[in-house]
């Protein structure tokens, strides 16, 4: 596989007595957007959390830029260069937008140019800069969550269902922002159920079902093959355009 930034090989995850991930293997190529698709409960979030060290992989190997990370503690994985945008956004409601961003900037003071670019991508960040993050709407919180992940350059960003529960117009804004992000040479691993968003952004795709990888390959291939889409996800691209 051409220059993979992140590889999972034979990863299993158990949560208590439950065996959630089975033999999960796929690669995230450097510099593109890899989509992780699948139905509810397929194990996509668990995969991201396992990469991040929030659940420990019981078996298998996870390699990031040549370095095994499957046994490391979450803070160390983060410091290795991976940012995480969780499903519930992980916004600190009691802190202001500024304070949320401040915490995320672990390498020191803000890069003003980068901050300006982020405020252009996501205007609410600027508007609500001194307001408590808990007062933001769902879409604005999602923007803040992504903004936090990119305030400093990271090599890999894991994003879990950024479009969940958002109005279509906001989704469109988010997609446009992520496209811009993609152009800055950041590698993104994106979990989504919204296939339209997925096909607009993704270069490679892995599909999960029941804790297993059931398909992996180029996005263009999957987008063109309606019957494969239906087989894997029970839907076709036209319906969701």
């Amino acid at each position: 596989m051409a220059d993979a930034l992140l590889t999972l090989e034979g990863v299993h995850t158990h949560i208590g007595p439950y065996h959630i991930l089975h033999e999960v293997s796929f690669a995230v190529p450097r510099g593109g957007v890899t989509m992780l698709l699948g139905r509810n409960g397929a194990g996509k979030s668990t995969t991201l959390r396992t990469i991040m060290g929030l659940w420990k992989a019981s078996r298998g190997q996870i390699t990031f830029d040549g370095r095994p990370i499957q046994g490391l503690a979450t803070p160390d994985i983060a410091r290795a260069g991976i940012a995480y945008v969780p499903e519930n956004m992980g916004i600190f409601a009691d802190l202001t937008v500024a304070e949320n961003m401040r915490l995320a900037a672990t390498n020191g003071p803000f890069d003003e140019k980068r901050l300006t670019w982020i405020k252009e991508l996501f205007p609410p960040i600027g508007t609500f800069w001194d307001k408590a993050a808990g007062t933001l709407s769902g879409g604005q919180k999602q923007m803040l969550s992504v903004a936090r992940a990119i305030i400093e350059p990271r090599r890999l960003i894991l994003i879990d269902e950024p479009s969940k529960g958002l109005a279509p117009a906001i989704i469109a804004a988010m997609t446009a922002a992520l496209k811009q992000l993609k152009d800055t040479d950041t590698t993104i691993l994106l979990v989504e159920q919204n296939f339209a968003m997925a096909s607009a952004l993704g270069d490679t795709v892995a599909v999960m079902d029941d804790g297993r990888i059931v398909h992996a390959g180029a996005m263009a291939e999957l987008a063109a093959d309606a019957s494969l889409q239906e087989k894997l996800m029970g839907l076709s691209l036209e319906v969701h355009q």
Partner: protein
Amino acid sequence: MSETAIRPRLVGPTATERLGKAAPLLLAPVLALIGLAAIGNPSVWLTLTVAGLAMGLMIFIMASGLTVVFGLMDVINFGHGAFVSVGAFVGFTVLAWLSGWTQNPAVVLNLAAVFLAILASMAVTGALGLAFERVIVKPVYGHHLKQILVTMGGLIVAQQLIHVIWGPDAIHVARPPSLQGSFIVGEAAIEKYRMLAVAIGLVLFLAMRHVLRATKLGLLVRAGVENGEMVEALGYRINRLFLLVFMAGSALAGLGGIMWGLYQETITAHMGSEIMVLVFVVVIIGGLGSIEGCFIGALLVGLLANYMAFLAPKAALVSTIALMVAILMWRPQGLYPVVKAK
């Protein structure tokens, strides 16, 4: 982005919401006024109010560590009283060593002695907190029942060790001369030591607020109280933060202990566990994890205890419980519950 027609609206809080937020702040002043009405005599009221503030602030100092530890680490430390007792005894020992200063009428020497005693108390209890967290608490993260049991066990062992080191009897702690006696304000006698306690308590409260609001450490604590996992995912080693906060909480308890010891002028091994009932009440009233709530709760408890000691001494503790129950009926999670992102 300019294609979207969604303009951000800055929706401010409604009047009801604002009142709801402000209501807890009014509780202490309202209680003070009720006290004035019930007591009648303004000089007596003033004396009692200062006493209540002093006591309340000392309890706040002890309770603040407990509430932040619970909010941040989800650890319930029933052994917190041990730090209070140890702090008191260590402070007493230092004061006994410095008897040259404590028996000298000069204010500067007296205050210096008390200050050194406080430093020693905080250092020892902070170190004890380190040991306590690593050895006793860490193995039982996440198991509340076990935490309650082992920390109580730790408390028992600590109290017994105090008996071993300092003997089984209660020890009298004399206040240095310049801290004895009272200021006379009109017809009211206001004890000098209580003024000092109020001053120290307020300084600490403001310092804590500053640390929480204006420093990176405070930011981490506030974020950690809400969502420890996310803090880790941002790259911070939260276990170190836990340890630091636990030690700070223990040191504060030690400070509270020596101050309480000087307030009561007697120290016993179980003074810590005796005051823990009030500390728990304050933490419950304030809401687990909230310094502001703890502060208000402590003032309420301090004021109520002193007013009732004057008005109806037999009903003092019961009235404190009644206050707690009443507040829980109004806000089941305390005045300022921290909303955990789970």
